[in-house]
């Protein structure tokens, strides 16, 4: 988190007299199930950051179903991430477009990326590296549904990893499955040079594996037995770095807290993962109406409970130290 922004600003001030540069903090919004409200939440978080005076870029990385421009009332974005991927535009800055909200720019997504090529890991690194070069304080990534490697990799590369649930058992199960996949993806990647550990992690991914390794705790015990306590500690610290934020969307009464508590408990027990409850956003039919009418969500402002609720979530995300 940028608790000391001024220091970073001065450090990044370029000697050639160009406008001041920030070191952006990246927030990724993911979660297993489609329909949990990831795109709406991403848009509203970016909106509130911008309203707080923070230079913000909202990037649509839902590579299969980019639609966030519609939520901002933009029908046909003139440029998109696809132009950067296809090298038609050399810098991400050039595919970022201004929105009606001051301080908020948008990098529109495109399905073109999927058809031209699924970005390989190096391309994902390139996208993230270029996102970090943007002249913004915050970058909010809207990730697609599901647990594909694309989604997981962008999620894991972010500084704040936000998982969105809705208060239904299936959404909770999917949210948990998403985090589980993220943990194993991170471990697998960390051990890719170590054949034995990599194989072990591959086996443990299957919840019904023959080794009867059912939890990360059990996996770490096996790792300690086979490769020593040092390897165990290393993997444990890798998991500790993940610390996802849980946001429950479309809640009623106390269901938000309950949904988050379920995921936190199961994550701790099975994944040794310290998930943080960041809050919930109530169900609001105005959001559904705005989406249906293709009206910009940002115009709802204080009339919408969900928009107001997202303000608290944004504040909590800013305040919470995920380090």
């Amino acid at each position, binding site marked *: 988190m940028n608790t000391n922004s001024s220091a970073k600003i001065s450090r990044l001030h370029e000697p050639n007299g160009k406008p001041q540069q920030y070191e952006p903090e990246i927030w990724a919004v993911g979660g*297993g199930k489609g329909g949990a409200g990831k795109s709406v939440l991403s848009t509203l978080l970016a909106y509130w950051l911008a309203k707080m005076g923070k230079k913000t870029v909202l990037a649509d990385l839902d590579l299969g179903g980019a639609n966030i421009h519609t939520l901002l009332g933009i029908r046909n974005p003139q440029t998109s991430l696809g132009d950067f991927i296809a090298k038609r535009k050399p810098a991400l800055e050039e595919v970022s477009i201004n929105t009606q909200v001051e301080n908020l720019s948008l990098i529109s997504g495109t399905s073109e990326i999927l058809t031209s090529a699924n970005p390989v890991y190096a391309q994902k690194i390139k996208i993230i590296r270029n996102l970090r070069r943007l002249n913004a304080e915050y970058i909010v990534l809207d990730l697609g549904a599901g647990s594909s490697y694309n989604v997981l990799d962008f999620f894991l590369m972010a500084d704040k990893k936000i998982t969105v649930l809705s*208060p239904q058992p299936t959404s*909770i*199960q999917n949210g948990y499955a998403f985090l589980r996949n993220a943990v194993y993806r991170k471990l697998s990647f960390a051990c890719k040079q170590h054949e034995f550990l990599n194989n072990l992690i591959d086996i443990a991914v299957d*919840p*019904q594996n023959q080794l009867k390794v059912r939890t990360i705790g059990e996996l770490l015990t096996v790792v300690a037995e086979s490769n020593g306590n040092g390897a165990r500690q290393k993997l444990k610290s890798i998991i500790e770095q993940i610390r996802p934020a849980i946001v429950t969307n479309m809640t009623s009464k106390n269901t938000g807290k309950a949904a988050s508590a*379920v995921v936190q408990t*199961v994550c701790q027990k099975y994944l040794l993962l310290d998930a943080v409850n960041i809050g919930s956003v109530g169900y609001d039919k105005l959001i559904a109406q705005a989406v249906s009418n293709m009206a910009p969500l940002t115009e709802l402002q204080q009339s919408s409970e969900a928009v107001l609720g997202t303000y608290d979530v944004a504040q909590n995300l800013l305040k919470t130290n995920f380090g």
Partner: protein
Amino acid sequence: MNLNDSIVSRFMENSGILPPPEEFGKIMEAFPEHVGLLMAFADSLFAKRKFNAAAGIYAKASRISIKSGLVLQAILAKQCEWKTSEPSQSELEAFHAAIGGTAKNSNPLNAFFAQMAFSEIFAFMNKLKRLRLSSGEVFINAGDEENAIFFVVSGILRRITGGKMEGQTEFKSDMISAIGANDWFGDIYPFEKHFYSPYKLEAATPVEVAEIEKSKLKNLCGQYPNIELLFRNLSDCKKSSTGKKILHTVRKARRYQIPTSVDLKIFHLGDRKELSSVKGITKDLSTAGACISLDENYLAGAVQVLVGRRIKAELVLPGDNLRITVLGTIVWAKNMLPTGKRGLEIGIEFDNLPSDTAELLRNYCQAGNGEQQLILSLWESLRKQ
């Protein structure tokens, strides 16, 4: 049963009877690459002594089968084609190469054929005999001596195990499983031993098999020792490490013991009319199929009529209104009466799921049993607080 299967069934049930040309033209246009349909049509032409026309269609059926990795079907089609005209050496070599080029790991039967040498495969083909059964016809009875091996080309057979219970005079089936295309039956190896069928086999749909008699296979193995080695491997596939027979219909996807409510519609064989609607609970579930305990009100004696039937299942995900609809086939059924419970269990093989449904089901399954249970029980208790 889907439309393709029902059309082919009509051909097979009425072998030798051609539909009116305009109807047939439309059918072939709709299913230009349906091997069963091509074979049925070619057989009809052959029966009418239109050999050249039949040969062309057999050749097409063989080509499509090879392309689809269906080696047994390709062999049968080629065998029929070559009845009409002697193949050249280059044709034989090309066909042998095509068989060898199929994925050896795709199924045990493909591996069996693909590993045969040039002379071996044609010697084996010469001994194969095509047989057809109408639905309901009994193939073999429990206790009959097994004196041939049968490779299933198309259709579904019911394998019924069971016996007479104490104080009862009638044979009661307690477990029914299905045998489908590219499977085989007939316990004949080692050749010196005598085997007796422990089950009754009957056709659940029109069935075509390729038979090779035990005595002929034994002689063949005497001439070609490699065939015996391959056949021994094939026989071993049916046996588990303990030497017991393994169950058929081994599901390709991992199963998860997640109790999930199911609303099941069971259809009549050969059409889409509903036979019955019944509720059940999954005992295990995967993206490829499910084992379902049917509601206790369902008649326990229904096992014999269920296997081979098409179903539509709606899986009701717990605590939510989300329903996953899948289509499939009942591949086995088992009475629960001997265990003291009412009702029965059935095994369902799903059709290929659409990608979004498969993803949903995979996510539902993959959180793992312990995690699933914990999530659901925590949710049940926490949401009420």
